[in-house]
């Protein structure tokens, strides 16, 4: 008995399936982007009259060549730095009624610490032999402190988180020029409440 011919499977749509796969992967793959901590360097010019900053408005972070932290003359672990910076920035020590009074600060109101976030300056002093790893870790913690406070304020004022909205804006998730501009303004408002005032002193040469 002759074998019956098996019916051929229609393979015409295989190409379409392959194309679908190709397009799916094309759309979903994102080439990983570099991420990092952005900074603006101070322009090079001779400062004739350096602004006077009161001792209490200055938060000095010292990193030595062995990657140890000295914060406000006290030895500190890296994990405590964020909280210490938040406490300092959020202190709002100026007496109520004075023009420097900070009405949104929720800190201890210690008159020995910073007057208000606008006055508070964090100064980082590195040794030339400090490792880059430690340097970045310190910067990261300090930025985290600012982000924490900004998030808190934007949550209070507008009901969203500062960091999340900034991210959305940078990734182009916000549509429409008007919305973008409005958001930009609100973000600037929040930034004004806690302006990033990080100063970096010229690193000391080891042993000096």
């Amino acid at each position, binding site marked *: 008995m002759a074998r019956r011919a098996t019916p051929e499977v229609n*393979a*015409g749509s*295989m*190409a379409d*399936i*392959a*194309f679908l796969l*190709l397009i799916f992967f094309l759309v979903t793959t994102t*080439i990983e*982007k*570099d*991420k*990092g*901590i*952005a*900074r*603006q*360097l*101070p*322009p*090079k010019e001779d400062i004739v009259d350096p602004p006077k900053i009161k001792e209490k408005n200055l938060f000095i972070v010292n990193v030595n060549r062995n990657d140890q932290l000295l914060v406000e003359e006290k030895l500190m672990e*890296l*994990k405590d730095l964020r909280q210490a910076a938040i406490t300092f920035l959020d202190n709002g020590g100026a007496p109520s009624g004075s023009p420097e009074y900070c009405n949104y600060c929720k800190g201890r109101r210690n008159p020995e610490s910073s007057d208000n976030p606008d006055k508070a300056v964090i100064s980082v002093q*590195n*040794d*030339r*032999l*400090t*490792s*880059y*790893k*430690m*340097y*970045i*870790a310190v*910067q*990261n*913690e300090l*930025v*985290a402190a600012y*982000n924490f406070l900004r998030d808190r304020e934007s949550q209070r004022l507008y009901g969203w988180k500062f960091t999340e909205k*900034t991210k959305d804006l*940078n*990734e182009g998730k916000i549509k429409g020029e008007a919305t973008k501009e409005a958001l930009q303004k609100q973000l600037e408002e929040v930034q004004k409440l806690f302006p990033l005032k990080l100063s970096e002193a*010229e*690193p000391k040469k080891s042993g000096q």
Partner: protein
Amino acid sequence: MSKFTKKKSNELPPVSTASLPDIVFMLLFFFMVVTVLRDDNLLVQNKLPKADQVEKLKKDRSVYIYAGKPSSRYVDKYGSEPKIQIGDKYTDITNIKFALTEARQKLLPELQDKVMVALKVDEKTNTGMVTDIKQELRDLNMLKIIYITTPGNEINQ
């Protein structure tokens, strides 16, 4: 005679499309192999430090500076002192300005003013070297920098 006449009518046989997916796949693989996401050839060790408070880098307007110890295969030639790399070659600290200006000219003309310098520095490098680079950048008036990091946190490893 009838033995030699064709049984079938003279209809055209359908072209087999079974091999079409193979052709598409071959195309796909060809492009996958040929496309290179071109990046600088690293001459230095580059283990980036960790951070989580990060922003994204806009690649079209950035110039990369790498720094770190020479990679293991170059140690014999260049020693183990940390070096700076811009583009595809080592650069001396005094030569940074020239190399950077050159790198900047490769960007789109309308983005050259908004240039951002991406620092990819090995975590074991000394901060002193980074400071030297920053001083040079200030001289050049390229003030926007970004320290490239990897996701993570130093505290809870």
